[in-house]
């Protein structure tokens, strides 16, 4: 157990966790744009910046990203100090110049007292805040199809050589996780288009509805060892199959079954059967 302080409140941290994880666990709000518990923290958005100090530092305080800063004995963290507030407002001011049309940025900025940007907005803005969540999610899925390219003001999220990525499986995790929803994913006539690549959609054997890409199915079967037979039907048709088999059991055990709402008498309970392998 690591004993430390957040905003002068005594808290107990677990060895090895980050200041952000600890703050979230004990109910201290720190805003973030690039954090997901399942993904490696990257410190890209800087919005989770907090001030830290140790008793031996003579009151000197350091500004750090809480998602990357490990907890330590006697550490003192300040999440709402004037310097932290100013830093967050400046970051959001800059983000607003970069993405003036993104509702999430507008809302966050307004919450921190920034209504309009004091910088010159980009000439051709898009909604990408370069948080890198899409890149890390893609790595997590195991496709490694996108990455950040170039640096400084030229930094972009791109595919290798700016060509349609061979490794992409078209799962759409990048588009789902994007906080500003700026990754374009289109679906039409059994084809999903993302990153300028077209993916054939798998059709349900029963109802012919398109529900996932063929490439994603192959990827999951190969990489995660799942049965190919799981992917023959869409979720709705799978439910229908469960319903049919349960109904079959009812009609077999109660041949004269009349539903309650149609005047059926309450049925005697089914005999109990022991089911080996089922947890008590």
């Amino acid at each position, binding site marked *: 157990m690591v004993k430390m302080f957040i905003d002068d409140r005594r808290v107990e941290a677990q060895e090895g966790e980050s200041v952000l994880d600890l703050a979230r666990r004990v109910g201290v709000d720190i805003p973030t744009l690039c954090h997901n518990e399942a993904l490696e923290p990257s410190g890209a958005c800087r919005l989770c910046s907090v001030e830290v100090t140790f008793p031996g530092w003579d009151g000197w305080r350091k500004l750090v990203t809480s998602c990357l800063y490990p907890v330590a004995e006697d550490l003192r963290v300040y999440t709402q100090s004037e310097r932290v507030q100013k830093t967050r407002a400046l970051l959001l001011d800059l983000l607003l110049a970069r993405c003036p049309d993104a509702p999430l940025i507008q809302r966050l900025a307004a919450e921190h007292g920034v209504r309009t940007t004091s910088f010159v907005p980009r000439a051709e803005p898009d909604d990408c805040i370069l948080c890198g969540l899409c890149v890390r999610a893609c790595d997590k899925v195991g496709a490694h199809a996108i990455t950040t390219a170039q640096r400084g003001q030229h930094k972009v999220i791109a595919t290798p050589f700016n060509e349609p990525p061979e490794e992409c499986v078209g799962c759409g*995790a990048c588009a*789902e996780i994007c906080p500003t929803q700026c990754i374009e994913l289109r679906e039409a006539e059994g084809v999903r288009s993302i990153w300028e690549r077209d993916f054939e959609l798998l059709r349900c054997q029963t109802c012919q509805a398109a529900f996932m890409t063929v490439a994603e199915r192959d990827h999951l079967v190969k990489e*995660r060892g799942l049965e190919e037979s799981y992917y023959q039907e869409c979720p709705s048709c*799978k439910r229908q199959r469960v319903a049919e088999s349960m109904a079959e059991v009812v009609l077999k055990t109660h041949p004269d*079954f*009349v539903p309650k*709402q149609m005047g059926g008498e309450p049925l005697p309970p089914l005999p109990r059967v022991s089911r080996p392998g089922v947890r008590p």
Partner: protein
Amino acid sequence: MKRLLVRPTECTHCRNCELACAFYHSGAPTPVGPRVIEVRRVRTVPVPLTCLQCDEAACVAACPADAIRRSEETGALEVKPHRCIGCRACEHACPFGAMYFSEERHVALKCDLCKGNPTCAAFCPTDALRWAEA
């Protein structure tokens, strides 16, 4: 351990459970959800369909982010929304079609037994859904 008992013979297809589930999981008791229980009628038999909390679950095996975890308290498999990356692998892997996806919040949705007090069972007027020792 308590379990969610489903008895189609008692069900009247009133779909109260669907509304209660939508209220708990999406904050609005709308018939369209998102919710994680559904009642379907096959011939004369209404069947409430929800997650079976499999011992060896396909959703867990499919999730690359380790976002679906077993609760020690209730035995339910719960989605940790802060870990979900939205790849929908679980939704497509579940052999029973019991995984859902919230388009609004961009995270997977599944029955978590309402953290130990299933709303569907509480609102079921006929005991077709019951939260009891089994």
